[in-house]
């Protein structure tokens, strides 16, 4: 009885309210990040290049194993898988995830008065920052963390290249055709 944990409209909506608050307070500083929004990254349908970069940095820390046999996030199509999952959710939720990523990226300077964005941090700093979200007393922050974690796990462990390291056989069938058929 496995289950993905929560990536839901509600969690995004709750977080969106919070991140909108951050952005109102700091519109000028966030403007450069917003300026990149609008065009998606090559090969992606939802995430912009900026959002893809932030998400890659998050996923790298989420799945960090220290095991050299496990592939690096950047060497897989994890971000493409995450993007494909996002294609299937409501456009409003896609938009809210975008705001969540921007809020996450700019949280350190805006909330912690640090002179670095998330992607500008070292790996240990990123881990501490993620842990702050995971342990937050605010449910919305914890839920946002969980959404980012679950999308990261979805993107990474859906990759065939990760399976050998966890001794998973993968599908019995060869890579199948696209999951669409027109006939009845």
């Amino acid at each position, binding site marked *: 009885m496995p289950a*993905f944990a929560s990536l839901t409209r509600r969690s995004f909506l709750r977080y969106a309210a919070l991140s909108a608050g951050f952005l109102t307070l700091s519109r000028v500083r966030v403007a450069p990040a917003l300026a990149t929004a609008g065009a998606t990254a090559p090969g992606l349908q939802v995430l912009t290049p900026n959002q893809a970069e932030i998400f890659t940095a998050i996923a790298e820390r989420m799945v960090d194993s220290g095991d050299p046999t496990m592939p690096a996030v950047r060497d897989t199509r994890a971000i493409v898988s995450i993007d494909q999952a996002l294609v299937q959710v409501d456009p409003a939720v896609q938009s809210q995830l975008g705001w969540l990523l921007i809020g996450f990226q700019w949280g350190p300077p805006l909330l912690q008065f640090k002179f670095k964005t998330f992607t500008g941090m070292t790996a240990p700093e990123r881990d501490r920052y993620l842990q702050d979200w995971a342990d937050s007393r605010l449910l919305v922050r914890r839920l946002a963390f969980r959404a980012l974690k679950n999308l990261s796990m979805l993107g990474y462990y859906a990759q065939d290249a990760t399976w050998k390291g966890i001794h998973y056989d993968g599908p019995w069938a060869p890579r199948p055709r696209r999951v669409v058929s027109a006939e009845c």
Partner: protein
Amino acid sequence: MITKGQVISGDLNLKAEVCVIGTGAGGAVVAKELAEAGRDVVVLEQGGYYTKEDFTQREDEMMPLLYEDMGQRATVDQSIIILQGRNVGGSTVHNLCYCFRTPAAILEKWRREDGVRDMTYEQLVPSFERVEKMLKVKDILPPEINALNNKIREGCEKLGYHGLVARHNRESCTTSGFCLLGCPFDAKQSMLITYVPAASAAGARIYADCPVQKIHAEGTRVRSVEAAVVDALGRPRHRVRVDAQVVVLAAGAINSPQILLNNGLANSSGQVGRNLHLHPSVLLAGVYDEDIYGYRGIPQSYYVDEFIDLEKDPDSGYILMPVFGFPVATASQLPGFGRKHWEAMQHFHRTVGILVLMHDQSAGMVRVNRSGKPEIDYQVNARERRLFLEGMKHCAEILFAGGAKQVLVPYESPLWLQPGDDLRAIDQRGLRPNDIPIASTHPQSTCKMGEDRRRSVVNSWCRSHDLQNLFVCDMSVFPSSLGAPPQISTASIADRTAHYIKDNWSQLVA
């Protein structure tokens, strides 16, 4: 005939004697039985029509196709994930094939407390037998029990706990283990390959990708049903309207009340959406020295019934069941991130999962928000939180008795137990929402059956108290938690209802 939404090129206006909403364990049975009885049946299914060629055995591709909200449906506080099917065949396409008849003690409880008539165990036997024959229900044979299930059995036997090997509805199973992602070998005898094609062969017209939005009623009769025809992303393209003499709502215990509440129907009791039971479950994971490969073979075959005795107490208890996960689901459930997460994830192939499945008295509620979407409210009550903790300690005992070297209790801040550790550590951590994953695959009881129209939504034959030609026929009609996996109960009650409709047709349409 089964028609996919993508080939519907304009609005449809259909006439039928019976309109069935949903193709899961309830709707598919009603559709087949009534079509074979010569009734003109139209079936509307909100999800897509996928067959074995579509089942790629990959989580990232199958979860969006086969699960409601891509497997993300959850209670409003996000503390309980609810897994439900949304495809032709419903949850029977992704379930794990446990086949339990409705416990006699539960049927007696329904008679005693809710006045349910003519539904004793003996009276249901003909329906059980018809359904089991159709689904080819049989014993799971000893060689088919995989290493994961055997570890749990070994632990139970050492501790003297009672457990059983279940029956299942698979035929010529390859034991590939991908049941949760749809069976690419058509070994699983789901509604998709049994009742649905039989209904179609008997003349039922089945429309996939058609979520029902409106049920039109006049006075005490339903007149028509209206659905959208949606594309792969759920965007409405066209409309289907079905004028029908009898309507059978079988959309599941979340979506059936959603449809009724959105239409303001069948709710003179105020009970639509109330009384929600979930069979909530919490899992623990044992790590062994040897390779287990829990995802190989029949995923669930053994279960532990030591802690439930419905004859003595039909209101309480829990079952312990094996559980496994594919990589994405496992990674999502394990606590922490980065190196701490990897401490558990690296043992993926040496892990045995076991869960506590609660026969719950806790009652939640389904309501609809301003967009008409369902909101699910459910809290585990204090008594059942205590039972969960007791069950979790038994799970740890069983895992250690079976040879586990470590047991993980997947709190947000994980609790790792070693052999000989004091299991009261679990009591100290407790069971708090959003601190440990809780899941449900059996939502039920939101349109409960009973003879008191002030306390129930449908009567003993699943017929609405308010609308003469509306039936509800899915897990939502169970008056209480079932205390057992529900596939056979749902299908058998649907079979019984179909025969009632068949036998009383002239009165129903008069």
